[in-house]
C-alpha cells in the first residue's frame, strides 16, 4: 500500500498555508501529524493532488490561556497537550480523554486539531469538544470565522470546512470551579477501536444540584452526539441514585447506535446507559 503521487508544499506560516489552500482548494489536503490522513492515503481512499505540510508553520504550534479558554493551535501535538500542566489544570476533560487517543507513537505526532478535523464518530476528541462546547477557529485567505462544535461536525469524517479553509485553532473553555467532568470509553481491547464512549461536563450549584449538564456520546450516531434528552432530565435536579438510574435508562432508550464489526447496536445501546450512570456517579462522588 503506497500513496498516489502528489505535489508537496511546505509553507512557513499559517498565512502562506491559507494562500496555498486558496490556490489548490479541493485538490489539496493539509498535512499536520498525518496519523489519520496518511493511512487513508496509503489505502488510496484519499488521493490528494497537493499536500500542504504545515509542520514548519511555527505560528500554529501553541497552547495558551486566552479569554477564559485554552487555545490550541493547529500544530499542537496530542502528546504535548497530554503532558501540559495548563491542560491538566484548566481543561481536565481533555486531559482525561487524551490518553485514550490512539497510542503513544500516534500521539507523539498526531495533533489535537487534526483529530477534530478528521471527525471520526468514534474519535475521543470530538466528544470532548462537544461536551465542553469548544469553539473552532477556521482560517482562510478570506479571513477567520468561528463556529461551535455542533456546527463543525457534519457527519462521519465530514466537517464544515470549505475547500479553501483550515482549522487553525480550537478553544476549550476553562473548567469552572463548580463543574465536574468525566471521560469514559469502552473498547474490546485496550486502545483498540472504541465500542462507545462518553464525555460529560456538569455544572453544580449548592451541593448536588445540577445547574447545567452536557453529555456527548461517541458510537451512537455518525457524529459525536449530544444526549439532549438526558441533559434536559438532569438540569435543575438534585443528583441522586434515582435520577442517575433514570438518566441511564433514558440514554439506552434514546441512543441510535452504530452497528458494526466491533459491536452490535443492541450492545452499544446497553453500554451507553451504563456509561451515563457510571459517569454521573463519579460526578456525584466528587460533589460529595
Amino acid at each position, binding site marked *: 500500500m*503506497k500513496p498516489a*503521487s502528489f505535489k508537496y508544499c511546505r509553507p512557513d506560516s499559517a498565512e502562506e498555508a491559507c494562500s496555498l489552500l486558496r490556490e489548490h482548494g479541493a485538490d489539496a489536503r493539509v498535512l499536520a501529524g498525518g496519523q489519520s490522513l496518511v*493511512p487513508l492515503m*496509503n489505502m488510496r481512499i484519499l488521493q490528494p493532488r497537493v499536500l500542504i505540510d504545515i509542520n514548519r508553520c511555527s505560528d500554529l504550534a501553541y497552547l495558551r490561556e486566552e479569554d477564559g479558554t485554552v487555545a490550541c493551535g493547529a500544530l499542537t501535538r496530542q502528546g504535548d497537550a497530554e503532558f501540559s500542566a495548563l491542560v491538566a489544570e484548566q481543561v481536565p476533560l481533555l486531559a482525561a480523554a487524551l490518553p485514550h487517543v490512539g497510542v*503513544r*507513537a*500516534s500521539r*507523539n505526532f498526531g495533533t489535537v486539531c487534526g483529530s477534530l478535523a478528521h471527525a471520526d464518530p468514534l474519535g475521543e476528541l470530538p466528544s470532548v469538544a462537544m461536551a465542553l462546547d469548544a469553539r473552532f477557529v477556521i482560517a482562510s485567505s478570506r479571513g477567520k470565522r468561528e463556529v461551535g462544535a455542533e456546527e463543525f461536525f457534519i457527519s462521519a469524517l465530514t466537517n464544515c470546512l470549505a475547500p479553501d479553509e483550515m482549522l487553525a485553532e480550537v478553544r476549550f473553555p476553562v473548567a469552572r470551579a463548580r463543574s465536574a467532568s468525566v471521560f469514559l470509553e469502552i473498547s474490546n481491547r*485496550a486502545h483498540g477501536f472504541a465500542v462507545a464512549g462518553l464525555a460529560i461536563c456538569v455544572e453544580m450549584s449548592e451541593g448536588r444540584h445540577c445547574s447545567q449538564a452536557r453529555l456527548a456520546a461517541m458510537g451512537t450516531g455518525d457524529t459525536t452526539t449530544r444526549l439532549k434528552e438526558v441533559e434536559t432530565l438532569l438540569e435543575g435536579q438534585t443528583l441522586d441514585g434515582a435520577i442517575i438510574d433514570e438518566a441511564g435508562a433514558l440514554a439506552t432508550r434514546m441512543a441510535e447506535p452504530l452497528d458494526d464489526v466491533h459491536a452490535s447496536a443492541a450492545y452499544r445501546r446497553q453500554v451507553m446507559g451504563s456509561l451515563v450512570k457510571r459517569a454521573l456517579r463519579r460526578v456525584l462522588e466528587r460533589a460529595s
Partner: protein
Amino acid sequence: MTAGKVTVRLTVNGKAYSREVEPRYLLADFLRHELHLTGTHIGCEHGVCGACTVLIDGKTARSCLQFAVALDGAEVTTVEGIAGDGPLHPIQEAFHEAHALQCGYCTPGFLLTTVEFLRRNPTPTRAEIREALTNNMCRCTGYLNIIEAVENAARRLSGAGEVATERTR
C-alpha cells in the same frame, strides 16, 4: 513548491544521508530501500501494528505514516542504531533472555517502543508496561514474555536487581 523528486537529508543512527526521492516516499521505504536498513519491518502499512516503529528526534513514530520529505533535517533511530556495532543493548538482552520473541517480525518495533518508554518512565509498574505495549502487536508470544523482558530491562537500566521470572521462581 516541489514536483518530481526532492532532496531529503536525514541523520539515521548518527550518520548523515542525502537522497533524491518522490514526496510520496514513506520513511519506512526510505530506510529499507534507499538506506538498506532492513531492520525496520513493515506490517500493516496503516499505523495499526507498530512493526515499523522508529524514533524521530527521540520520539516513537510509525515510519509507515511519515513522508521522508517532511522529515528533512530530522534525526532517526532504527533498531540497527540501538546498540550500534557493540554488544546487545540491555533492552535487547532482556528480550533475548526472557524469550520475548518467536518469529521476531514485530521485535524491532517493540524494542524502540521500550527505548522511549523506559526513558520517560524508568521504574514502571506492570500495568504501565502493559499500557505502553499497546503501541505494538505481536501475533506469536501472547505478550507475557515481552512484559517480563521490559520489566527486567527497566531494572537493569535503573541499576536495580533482576526480578524473579516465571521460569526462575
